[in-house]
């Protein structure tokens, strides 16, 4: 079969995916599916999407060979620089697409969940650009640890609603956004930030993010030639990974690697379950109550994962490994000091895995593409606290 092609008509990737939403939302999911399907084959829609990504968001992003780190590790490392996008992460790729769809559907308001705040900031930015009202739901724990992004959203004119239920992180922000959507579905588009949720979101968001992988593949082919041996990206919900993998899924000799936080490893430590509109791998207890993830990175602090990742894992097309918080902090320091690139804590997971596995899982001499999904400014206060003794 065509790996990373279309899901089935009801949004299935193998046994994962689907549309597990209340009846109140069924019509909205169908409306969105039709809007996306008709737009994505419309040359005018595509042209506008690419034009905004180019002259507003700053695409294409470069593929940067990191020489010093590569020499030290004995593998060639290329960073796909999504951190250089406007707003500082890959999230803008998806949000521009969904904001255009919101206009097409004639809706005036968008809502979003956010963990690290990157998707929230991207949504707030698009709302300002397109003149839409925006509300972003964010767990109270994340509001505290991602203060800078909360301020950016407010400055952009977006209402930020702190969520105090459950674990007060990303999972609960999604619950609250879904509840708002149920109440306001006729006027409001829910701009989900990752390859998760009910169909068509996992497929649609992957398509809006595939520009990462398509660009990286073309750049690699032109600048280096051939295919990389490894493509590595961090996975929470998994949108930057899905977008990256989409560009390389047909390259049989390229291994696709997703890196999960050890405290939120839905694929590594979960079992199939149903939450947030999808059937996917999920951290849950013996009764089916969803567990709370624990990660230094607010953006990966999520007990589920996009259903397509669960599928790619089940058929063995991509591999998933875990790194812990200490390895992530170490990787943040190493990349900053060897290359002058301060990564967000999320892509620092991908870097940490490469640091650990170079010469082990990754044979010496391998060519490795790593998606640098976002820049580290937003994490400065968290990292400063955790590294205060080492950077004194």
């Amino acid at each position, binding site marked *: 079969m065509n790996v990373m092609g279309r899901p089935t008509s*009801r949004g299935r990737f193998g046994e994962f995916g*689907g*549309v*597990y*939403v*209340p*009846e*109140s*939302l*069924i*019509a*909205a999911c169908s409306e969105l599916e039709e809007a996306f399907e008709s737009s994505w084959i419309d040359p005018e829609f595509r042209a506008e999407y690419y034009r905004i990504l180019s002259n507003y968001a700053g695409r294409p992003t470069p593929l940067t060979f990191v020489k010093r780190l590569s020499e030290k590790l004995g593998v060639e490392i290329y960073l796909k620089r999504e951190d250089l996008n406007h707003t500082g992460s890959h999230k803008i790729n998806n949000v521009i697409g969904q904001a255009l769809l919101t206009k097409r559907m004639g809706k005036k308001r968008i809502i979003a969940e956010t963990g690290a705040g990157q998707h929230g900031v991207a949504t707030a930015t698009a709302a300002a650009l397109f003149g839409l009202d925006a509300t972003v739901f964010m767990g109270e724990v994340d509001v505290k640890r991602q203060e800078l992004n909360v301020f950016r959203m407010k400055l952009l004119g977006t209402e930020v609603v702190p969520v105090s*239920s*459950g674990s007060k992180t990303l*999972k*609960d922000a999604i*619950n609250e956004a*879904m*509840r708002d959507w*149920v*109440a*306001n*579905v*006729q006027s409001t588009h829910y701009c989900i930030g990752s390859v998760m949720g009910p169909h068509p979101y996992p497929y649609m968001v992957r398509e809006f993010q595939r520009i990462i992988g398509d660009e990286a593949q073309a750049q690699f082919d032109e600048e280096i030639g051939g295919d990389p041996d490894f493509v590595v990206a961090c996975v929470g919900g998994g949108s930057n990974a899905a977008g990256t993998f989409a560009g390389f899924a047909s390259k049989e000799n390229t291994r696709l690697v997703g890196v999960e936080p050890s405290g939120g490893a839905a694929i590594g430590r979960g079992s*199939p*379950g*149903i*939450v*947030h*509109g999808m*059937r996917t791998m*999920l951290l*849950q207890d013996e*009764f*089916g*109550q*969803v567990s709370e993830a624990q990660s230094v990175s607010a953006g990966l602090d999520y007990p589920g994962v996009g259903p397509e990742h669960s599928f790619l894992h089940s058929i063995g097309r991509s591999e998933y490994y875990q790194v812990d918080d200490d390895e992530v902090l170490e990787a943040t320091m190493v990349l900053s000091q060897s290359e002058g690139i301060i990564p967000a804590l999320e892509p620092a997971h991908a870097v940490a895995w490469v640091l650990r596995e170079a010469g082990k899982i990754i044979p010496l001499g391998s060519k490795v593409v790593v998606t640098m999904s976002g820049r580290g400014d937003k994490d400065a206060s968290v990292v400063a606290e955790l590294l205060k003794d080492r950077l004194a």
Partner: protein
Amino acid sequence: MTLSLSSHLNPKKNQSKKILVPYITGGLGDNWLEVLEAVIAAGADAVEVGIPFSDPIMDGPVIQEASQKAIESGATPSSILGALAKQSFGAPLAVMTYFNIVHHAGLQRFAGWLDEAKVGGVVLPDLPIEEMGDWRTVAKSHKIETVQLVAPTTPDSRARMLCEEAEGFVYAVGTMGVTGVRSALSDSATLIGSRLAGFSDKPVLIGIGVSNAQQAQQAAKSADGVIVGSALVRRLLAGEGPDGAFKFVSELRHALDELSD
């Protein structure tokens, strides 16, 4: 013996008696079984018993809080259904929960628990008809009735199909929103009631946002009855216990009986 929703509720519909189905959260407080008995004694025609889930996306703050409290005090699907299995009740029971609870237990195993608990119906708000195939096959083999929800945004053709597929009763979502107490009944509640009346030969009950006796009466004018959850659970969270539950459900009963006369 399990009391089925349809065999108990259909005669009431046919006699034009308004149907009252209160909701309580299973495992909320040590006395939740006494609350259940009180609710039935006060005149409930059937009762929805919630099995709490960690991420209830169709529920507002009241039922979220009740769910969290019940889970924190150790309530599990098997503890709640196990407790029901030890008693008999004078009205049919339906379980209301989210599909992950059923999926994680295993469909056959969960249906077996319902059998033992003499629960005749289920309401699964995050399992739309398109995803329901496997569950319905299992449920039918256990003679468990699966209620269908119909929303204000459901188009007529689909609403007709859902009413056709519904077992036990049709759950007419009275307002666009999650469960919760509201100061006034939404216009959409009466609209959906009269819209579905033409599609369904099963009882059509309006739920979500029906918050007091007056609203129950207003909603029931356009339908066969009502489901009342948050307004009751809020009283339980405030510590009103079985007596408070009896008093509130009695008020609802009297208000509906005025329409039946």
